[in-house]
């Protein structure tokens, strides 16, 4: 479905700041129906990779193919097929929804027309009431806003869904709900999922395969259970070691 070869992205330094090598030669494949996780600490280049996968940015090196067609450095007018087939859910549940737009218009944005029937279907699929349509984003909680974001991503009936840290900004109490919703929808609509997170335990919850990123490189890639149980790279071990602190905190919280 997606083929990434030696992908590089260097942000030019501006106003005296040094240039940043956000991606230093990343290669991987995502097969149709796969649930592909990308994990790495903040600043490791995950969002940069996501923007490139969606052809919202141009790489400084390497190639990306979507269903055998190159999408890197291609002008927007030749990306129409990609826009219908690949959609993104972003991290920030406030910043990814236009504050001046009603939920109806936000969700229908990828359709480029108003379609009340489809709207009702989508609201139902993400578990929002029908009357949400005429309200504005700020009238919803973080979790609900992420549901709106998911509904918008599903609107054009895509084949691939990219989720960039979709629960990182949410209250711990609603994370599981949104994760389960995503997992359900991926199954129901037979989506190929690319799921980004800084938390391997979250990736393990929804993905079958994982790529571990560190400073713009993939240091480990494989079956998620295998990577979790027998990490080969020191960095992966550190990530796993860091995650349980959250779990432990949660457990303590639940105990009382």
């Amino acid at each position, binding site marked *: 479905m997606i083929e990434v070869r030696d992908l590089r992205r260097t942000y030019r330094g501006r106003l005296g700041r040094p240039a940043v090598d956000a991606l230093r030669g990343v290669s991987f494949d995502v097969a149709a129906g796969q649930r592909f996780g990308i994990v790495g600490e903040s600043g490791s280049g995950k969002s940069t990779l996501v*923007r490139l996968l*969606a052809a*919202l940015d141009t790489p400084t090196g390497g190639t990306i193919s979507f269903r055998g067609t190159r999408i890197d450095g291609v002008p*927007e007018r030749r*990306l*129409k097929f990609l*826009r*219908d087939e*690949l*959609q*993104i859910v*972003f*991290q*920030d549940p406030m*910043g*990814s*929804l*236009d*504050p*001046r*737009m009603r939920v109806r218009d936000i969700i229908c*944005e*990828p359709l*480029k027309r108003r379609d009340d029937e489809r709207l009702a279907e989508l609201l139902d699929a993400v578990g929002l009431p029908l009357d949400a349509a005429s309200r*504005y*984003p*700020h009238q919803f909680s973080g979790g609900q806003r992420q549901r709106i*974001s998911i509904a*918008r991503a599903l609107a*054009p009936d895509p084949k691939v869904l990219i989720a960039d840290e979709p629960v990182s900004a949410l209250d711990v109490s609603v994370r599981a709900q949104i994760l389960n919703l995503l997992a359900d929808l991926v199954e129901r609509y037979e989506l190929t999922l690319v799921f980004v997170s800084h938390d391997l335990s979250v990736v393990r919850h929804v993905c079958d395969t994982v790529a571990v990123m560190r400073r713009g490189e993939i240091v480990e890639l494989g079956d998620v259970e295998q990577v979790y149980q027998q990490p080969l790279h020191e960095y992966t071990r550190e990530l796993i070691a860091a995650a349980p602190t959250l779990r432990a905190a949660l457990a303590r919280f639940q105990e009382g």
Partner: protein
Amino acid sequence: MTTAVKRRTPTLTAGAVLVGLVVLVALVSFIWTPHDPTRVDAAVRLLGPTGDFLFGTDKFGRDLVSQIMVGARTTLYVGVVAVGVAALIGTPLGILAAMSPRWLGEFIMRVNDLVLAFPALLLAIMFGAVFGASTWTAMVAIGIATVPSFARIARSGTMQVMSTEYVLAARAAGRSRLVIARRHVLPNIAGLLIVQSSVSFAIAVLAEAALSFLGFGTRPPTPSWGRMLQESQELLAVQPRLAIVPGIAIAVAVLGFNLLGDGLRDRLDPRLAGRR
């Protein structure tokens, strides 16, 4: 911006009251003024305040109150046209500068800085010299001189909007730049533009007064606050009233629009409060 709770904003209220007063006076002048503001009558020249002439009369015997009332029309008319010209040219220019390739954006902004560096009054005087001095040339000249402030604010607002994830999402949805500009950028920078309009309005009012004072603005006999000031000059020592009355009118309008602009700024974006 979106979590705007209704705060008490004394500046906003004060500005709205002063601006409302000017607008009200201008509107009333269409249906009623105590006297004909242009009627010359030697019998009543240079009268002090009386029951009939509340603020007295000028050297031609014209009623000051009536002139101020009709002058408010001129003031608002100039402000609306000047700000309208500036907003209609400056806003698309600023959005274009922010959304086009870097070199083009930079070019637009350099030209913009050039216009900004050119003194507005000088531009208006040149316009007056070429096309003949009139309210119309003054308005257009003030408008053109105000274009850069709109272009700047529109550009910085647009750059901010373009860096948001909702614009990324719109791009991922296959929206063209033009559609993004109309659907996402414009509604989100509207607040900034309204604030800018109010502040520019104050500047335009002042500029029109200055131009009319210099003889490059509104022509006689159309009443204008700036020209009333000018005509008061020769009698300043003996009849300061003739300067004070239009002076206060100008001050009220300028203060009103400035306060309104500041109040709106605070209301729309508390983070910008107190900044110029």
